[in-house]
């Protein structure tokens, strides 16, 4: 499906929230690298997809009605074989049915378990006056507690993206603090420009979260994504 088709489908279904799979498809088409994520609506399919994309995998409930997937018991990580996938699938479905009996569950998203990297958050919101605004920050505690993030008004240029990664207090962590793998900062800047370009040419998007993004010494990948429509 094209980006327009995905957006139209959601609007036809009167949804303002895209599924993670839809969000990653759209971002992928915008040139932003996301972990391969495929929907399975049976246990057997989940195993087949896992075999195809390679272990270890992560299973996440796919439902626009469940915002906090972990709280619902809807996330199982580091699954190393078919048996584990089968068990996780059953557990996710039953736990989520318990947690939210009314929720419409379309299945389980199977995704490649990303190798841990420097945790990054990127996103976009629409300000009533300034229009779309993109955000960059370090993920985890740094964003939760310290709100160590930078913003720019869309559209941004490469120089703006460079300022965004340079502006955060925790920028040293991107350089590889205490033997940690340094982050591929130019790649992150490129992702920010692509995100800005995408929202600039795609009306009707209210908010985007790419959280977390794992940054490595060569490249970066969006592990979880969320898109909210106007």
């Amino acid at each position: 499906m094209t980006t327009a088709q995905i957006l139209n489908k959601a609007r036809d279904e009167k949804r303002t929230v895209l599924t993670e799979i839809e969000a990653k498809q759209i971002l992928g088409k915008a040139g932003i690298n996301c972990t391969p994520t495929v929907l399975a609506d049976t246990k057997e399919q989940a195993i087949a997809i896992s075999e195809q994309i390679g272990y270890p995998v992560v299973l996440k409930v796919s439902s626009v009605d469940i915002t906090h997937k972990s709280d619902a018991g809807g996330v199982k990580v580091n699954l190393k074989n078919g048996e584990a996938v089968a068990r996780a699938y059953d557990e996710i479905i039953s736990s989520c049915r318990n947690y939210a009996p009314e929720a419409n569950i379309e299945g389980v998203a199977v995704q490649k378990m990303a190798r841990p990297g420097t945790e990054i958050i990127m996103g976009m919101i629409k300000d009533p006056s300034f229009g779309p605004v993109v955000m960059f920050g370090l993920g985890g505690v740094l964003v939760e507690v310290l709100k160590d993030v930078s913003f720019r008004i869309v559209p941004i240029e490469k120089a703006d993206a460079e300022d965004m990664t340079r502006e955060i207090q925790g920028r040293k962590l991107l350089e590889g603090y205490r033997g940690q793998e340094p982050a591929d900062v130019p790649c992150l800047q490129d992702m920010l420009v692509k995100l800005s370009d995408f929202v600039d040419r795609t009306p009707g998007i209210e908010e985007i979260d790419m959280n977390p993004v794992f940054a490595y010494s060569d490249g970066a990948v969006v592990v979880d994504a969320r898109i909210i429509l106007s």
Partner: protein
Amino acid sequence: MMELFFKPKSVAVIGASGTPGKLGYVIIKNIADSDFQGEVYPVNPKSDEILGYKVYKSVKEIPGDVDLAVTALPTPKLTVATVRDCAEKGVKAVIIESAGFAEMGGEGKKFQQEIVEIAKQNNIRVMGPNCSGIVSRDIVTSIYPMTRKVPRGNVVLIGQSGLLAAGMASDIVENESLDISKVCSIGNKCDVNENDLLEYFGKEQDVDVISMYLETVSDGKNLTAIAKKVAAEKPVIFLSGGRTEAGARAAMSHTGSIASNAKIVEAAARQTGMIMADDFTELKDFAKVFSTQPLPKGNRVAVITLAGSVGVNVSDLCATYGLELPKLTAETTEKLKDMFDTPVSNPVDLYFSVTKIGFTRTLETTFPDAFRDPNIDAAVIILAGFEYTQEAVQKKIIQKIVQEVGKPVVVCMIVGYNKYKNVIMDQLGKDLPVFPSLISGVKALSKLCEYGIRRQKLSA
């Protein structure tokens, strides 16, 4: 269209009054006292003549064309009716000074909306309501009596609140604290907003510095685009109200919950190269620095002092505000070896030189030799309020040297006797930016350096 506001050939004042003290009188008096050369048409159904001008019963009775109408009427209802008259008369620019519109909510909001609709249908540009319009050499529509002619300077000030902008205007003009050319208050911004003015002043040849304070941003996306263009050519100093965290929205995403109005406005300033001021004094102070000093090529600063003790504090402040205090070159050190008891360092302590060759000679030789050093982009000069400093200021020695060297300076005065200090602040303050504290001077210089570096990058 903006030309009609700033360079009208004829102006009607609706709600003009012959009673001194009334707003409608002050406006006419201000126009009369300005260099306005065109026709002045006071409008008031109950008067025949005000300050020698023939008074008309209504704007429609005025015989000639009216480029600009200024209204100061007691009720919003009357104002709406007048805007309708202006439309019939073919007036294309209206300044509405009266309050009682959108800022009051309810009925006021509706009246303002009516005005917006009349203006749209008739291609009229409206400034205000709830503003004081324009203060300039050629026309003054402000409700504060002006005591002197407005200079033809190189700084413009865009403000929102009518009273504050008018107050700042008369303060600046009376005290000659800034080489201003125009102050413009846009009030409720029902039509003309900061973007119109930023674009207009951006293109005006004789405007070098734009200072702007806003309580609300009308159209941030457009502001970002316009400010980016304008700030690439001339400094735009920006004070934004409503910058508190309380602006954070209830959002569905993580990004949304962190984004606040404050952070977005700051991001826009960084992105466009606008210079953020934190209060009204800074709005003026920064404008003073930017309008009188050349742009530095970098952030390497010499601190010039006569007391070593100040150096520590000023060095710390420079570090806080991102300024560097580099060593002077070997050549300079060698050249100045007789003027310092220990090799010259930075802060540059002139005390030894003063005891050896006197204050004036030190200012004329030791100071410029250090300041010309190629490692130095700008200087913080710390002066004390003593008789010999006052003498040097009155003989314009400091001003001359600074001009000759051609690099930017800020002057900070932290000690001294008031009888000298006040004269120094006042007189030197006409030529150079002078600050009553180290922190205010260092901060202002850091803004100049930041902007200078940005401009260097843009032209590279």
